[in-house]
């Protein structure tokens, strides 16, 4: 485990390196993006994706999977664009209620020992149905303060970069550095040992799901702040994007191995991959496939690195 080039080091360097390679390729194809305005445009939509990815990461950290995050973010976006705009109190209450429902889902999955995939797949239809009820046709309006925040033009560094860094650092401190977060992660690594040491797994699952709900709410609000209006289908692709983002960022499906910084980098990489492919003048029909190809390349590299590690 010595030096900069140990497999473990390489593995943790892979996400930032892939992001750097992608950025350089974009700058090369389209030099005009290398400006304050260009970066702003390029990275804007990465913020809600990054928040949704963080939400997914909390769930993955306790060995569960959330297939409803896309529908959930859509519902939050619809509520933000309607109730939160028209009757702020009702809107806030609804959003807090949604976080509570997420915590309750965590409790249900733990107590009844249900597969989270099934529960959240079911919930994704519930969220989508509710979103259609709240906002039957695309429309609504973003509350002014969210709009202002999302279109901030701080001097020097574009807002999306600052936002991504802040999200990554805050969650990193919360989950990776604090004594409290250590216990939460331990629940993904060896739940039985946590229980023996006197921690309540029920409470941990509820906290993790509540955190996922909270970041899902932030994601929906950020999304409306950017798009200024909402639509029940606005964020459905976030489900797969968020899972891919966590994995791309070095996280794993089981064992509590996640990285908030990696997850944000993964989300930004996926958001950029779309732009990169447009700059290549690739037919939009091919874009999803090409995005998948990028994912496969990065994951294949990771497995190669892990193999060399296992060989030693």
């Amino acid at each position: 485990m010595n030096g900069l080039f140990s497999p473990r080091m390489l593995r943790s360097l892979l996400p930032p390196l892939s992001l750097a390679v992608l950025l350089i390729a974009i700058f090369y194809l389209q030099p005009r993006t290398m400006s304050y305005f260009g970066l702003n445009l390029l990275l804007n939509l990465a913020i809600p994706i990054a928040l949704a990815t963080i939400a997914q990461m909390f769930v993955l950290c306790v060995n569960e999977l959330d297939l409803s995050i896309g529908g959930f973010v859509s519902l939050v976006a619809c509520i933000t664009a309607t109730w939160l705009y028209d009757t702020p109190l009702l809107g806030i209450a609804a959003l807090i209620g949604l976080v509570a429902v997420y915590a309750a889902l965590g409790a249900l999955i733990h107590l009844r020992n249900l597969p989270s995939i099934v529960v959240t797949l079911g919930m994704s239809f519930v969220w989508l149905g509710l979103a259609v009820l709240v906002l039957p046709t695309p429309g609504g309006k973003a509350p002014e303060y969210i709009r202002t925040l999302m279109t901030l033009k701080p001097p020097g560094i574009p807002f999306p970069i600052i936002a991504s860094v802040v999200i990554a650092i805050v969650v990193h401190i919360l989950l990776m550095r604090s004594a409290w977060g250590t216990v939460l992660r331990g629940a993904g690594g060896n739940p039985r040992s946590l229980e023996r040491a006197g921690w309540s797994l029920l409470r941990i699952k509820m906290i993790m799901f509540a955190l996922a709900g909270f970041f899902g709410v932030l994601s929906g609000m950020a999304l409306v702040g950017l798009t200024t209006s909402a639509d029940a289908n606005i964020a459905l692709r976030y489900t797969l994007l968020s899972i891919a983002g966590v994995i791309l960022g070095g996280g794993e499906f089981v064992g509590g191995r996640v990285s908030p910084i990696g997850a944000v980098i993964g989300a930004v990489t996926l958001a950029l991959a779309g732009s990169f492919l447009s700059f290549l003048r690739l037919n939009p029909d091919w874009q999803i496939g090409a995005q998948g190809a990028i994912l496969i390349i990065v994951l294949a590299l990771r497995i190669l690195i892990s193999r060399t590690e296992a060989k030693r």
Partner: protein
Amino acid sequence: MTKDAPVVVLNGVEKSFGAVQALRGVSLELWAGECLGLVGHNGAGKSTLMNVLSGNLVPDTGRIEVAGSDITDRLTPQNATRHGVRCVYQELSLCPNLSVAENARITHPSISGPGWRRRARALIGGMLDTVFPGHGISADDIVGDLSIAKRQMVEIARSFAVTTTEARVVILDEPTSSLDAVAATKLLSHVRRYVEAGGSCVLISHLLGEILETSDRIAVMRDGGVVELDDAEHFNRDSLVAAMGSVAEDARDSADRPVIRDSAPIVVEARPKAPDSLALAAHQGEVVGLAGLSGQGQTELIVDVFDHASGAQVEGSVALVAGDRQTDGVFPLWSIADNISVGSLQRFLRGILIDQTQARDFADEWRQRIGIRTPDVDDPILSLSGGNQQKALFARALGSSAEIIVMDDPMRGVDVGTKQEVYGMIRDEAAQGRTFLWYTTEMDELRNCDHVYVFREGGIVADLPRAEMTEERVLHASFRADA
């Protein structure tokens, strides 16, 4: 702690799992400043007893006192920990995704707040230095990256570490199994230092030398009870082994069975990979027992035979009876009939489809032959008791056309009545020319075998024909002579 009040009192502790009585009224006292050695053959109840003391199992009856307070009614791991009972489990209980220091935080909740990481590092690093000087582990290493031996060291150091709760009693369940000799010596001398400073320790080990050297007193368990308890100096290796076996050898009712070896052809030949291992040979129609402590390479050999792996010469097809029903055996969502017939599906093919009626009749026939207690083979497999589920797995293997049946400790947790029925069936099938390889951890089952091989540390160390097979010889071979 004065000498006249024991730290731990176990009084009449009983525990059953279904039909199996794991503990039959164990009473034991543990004093401050002593190390109690606990020995016994597989399934004697050592681990169950320690799981009761550490709060992981609630006993059916009996009383448990720690440091003068009765904790029987509030027996949880947390409460046991609060009273100073620490346990190093046989299967490790560290979180592999966390660092060494972070793992210390998990069991020591008082390490929190700003600067917790520094304190956790100091705690676990200091303890590692005390117990295993020169360990070469950094408190920031991720546990998953460490070798098994180093993980074991971390786990042990974590249990001895003291924060707000004292470590009054430390239970070490096979602590040296994954340590090398140097680290094991360091641990055992730490145990002595800890005990001399007034702590109490329960040491469970299969290495009798370790037990004899380190313990003040030794308790020998057999069949869920403590059969002997005395000062360590009153024991030696032979008397311990003798105490672990049953006192009276059964009359050799089976001696009249003919020796198959001389005439029948060899159908299985295999040699475990461990150096200096003897080879195993099974002749047609034999029941060959694989004995020894659990996890000494028996399952690996059985899997090799089943796979027709390169190290094993196998004449004929093989069927397996799994021991771990839940993971390797039953299809939990299927019916009893499906679970039985899945071993012989080839036979029911009509073109590319399965003839369901024929498969069901086949299952029903086996239900009657083997005596599975169910009104209907279409009921789900999980509606059966453990013993009857196991019978269904036997039916799957025996119903297939395989000439060789390998069994991976198949009678775990099966009641006595079922066992007797299955023994009879195995003998009948063997008489008809089938060959059995039977890994078992129970001495009684070895008496049903024609030939027994004893495994130790991945190799075969003894080759006993039925006439020479005694419990004492199997036990002697199972424990290393130099340990």
